[in-house]
């Protein structure tokens, strides 16, 4: 069973069966940013606090930060984005993922938005 949660800042996190979270930015976020030309990813092994700047997204228009939705340790990053940052635009919640994180405290997920709540928020 997987759990998908969103933040107010337009990141998503999907928790797999092993309890590892995959993080990226939402479709809404990539639409707002426009064509993404570079993503600076965190290093594997980095400890992130919830809400800490984890990645920098450079679009043709501006730079934006991706914050970590939860506290934990980065276990893997999406190296494919170095060659094809456009994956974030094309498939933001799939091939355009940013990094994987081992959660410190799964309870932090409770304060995040579920998909319906997030959709309601961005539909405004």
């Amino acid at each position: 069973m997987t759990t998908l949660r969103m933040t107010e800042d337009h990141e998503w996190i999907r928790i797999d069966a092993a309890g590892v979270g995959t993080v990226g930015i939402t479709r809404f976020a990539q639409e707002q940013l426009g064509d993404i030309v570079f993503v600076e990813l965190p290093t594997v092994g980095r400890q992130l606090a919830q809400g800490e700047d984890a990645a920098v997204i450079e679009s043709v228009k501006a730079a934006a930060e991706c914050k970590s939705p939860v506290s934990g340790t980065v276990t893997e990053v999406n190296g494919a984005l170095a060659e094809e940052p456009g994956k974030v635009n094309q498939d933001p919640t799939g091939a355009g993922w940013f990094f994987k994180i081992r959660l410190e405290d799964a309870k932090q997920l409770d304060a995040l938005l579920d998909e319906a709540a997030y959709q309601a928020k961005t539909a405004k």
Partner: protein
Amino acid sequence: MTEAPLLRTALHALHRALGARMVAFAGYEMPVQYPAGILAEHQHTRTHASLFDVSHMGQARLALAAAAALEALVPVDVLGLAAGRQRYAFFTNETGGILDDLMISNAGDHYFVVVNAARKAHDFALLAKHCGAVVLADRALLALQGPLAAQVMQRLAPGAAALVFMQTAALKIGSAACFVSRSGYTGEDGFEISVPAGEAERLAKLLLAQQGVAPAGLGARDSLRLEAGLCLYGHDIDASTTPVEAGLEWAIQKARRHGGARAGGFPGADVILPQIERGTARRRAGILPEGRAPLREGETLLDAEGRRVGRLTSGGFGATVNAPVAMAYVESPLARPGTELAAVVRGRTRACRVAALPFVPHRYYREKTP
């Protein structure tokens, strides 16, 4: 703070219908991009042709008799501008700074000028006071840019296709009485078309219906002009930069320089003319960042010793170069292509080097085919 409602161009409804994302720019609601996106619109302009709505820019007409008065505001040879010709110019201030850049055309029986949207109020006041200019508020301005632009114009208005770079003509496109110049802001061959606002949408639709033509927004316009090494007022040039610092001395003709027939006689001449001969402490330069992440306006440049030697004035991603590109003012001895510098980004340094401008060769149509 109260915000004035945004102005709309004659093509507002068309932009909406085309699915544009609209943003506030210089008091107007303008398309920053269409569904294709900035990178695709940029590429399309370099390989095909794109239609840009630049109706937010200011258009005005001046009597031919105002030539001398206009020359007193710009370091450009206006009296020597022949009918059917256009020249790049800039208003200067007493300290040699640039108040705006503009295009001046000799339309035969009047001068036609185009100024930046954000400087309209200033420029129109200046032109009204000194030159009796009449603002053309009821005209839209379209730019058709790219290697296919000439073929399109050949079909719709052969007289336009017969022009060479920086030539102008009054001609009809369909039913619309237009004033066309072969110029633009992308580095590509192309045309800027002044058209009565009431005819603008019909003309835009006609142009968009031509094979190879797609709409492009202000986002692509900015990345195209940056790759072409063209200055954006308020960023790469402003009241604190002189034309010589900006590398624009090519636009100051011989007649207005020392020893010329009408040397000086414009604001800041005593600053600008000596700079042409002696140089300046800083120069505008192209900057190529290492890696894929763009550098941005406002970031500081350091030399190998960590000394502050410049500041970025424009930065973004060059879709044709397929790399980030930027422009900056740097200390003149360092403004040579190849100089290695570092930019300070979010507290860290990023390697970059000075590069020749433009980043992409201009492809203006300068010669008539034999």
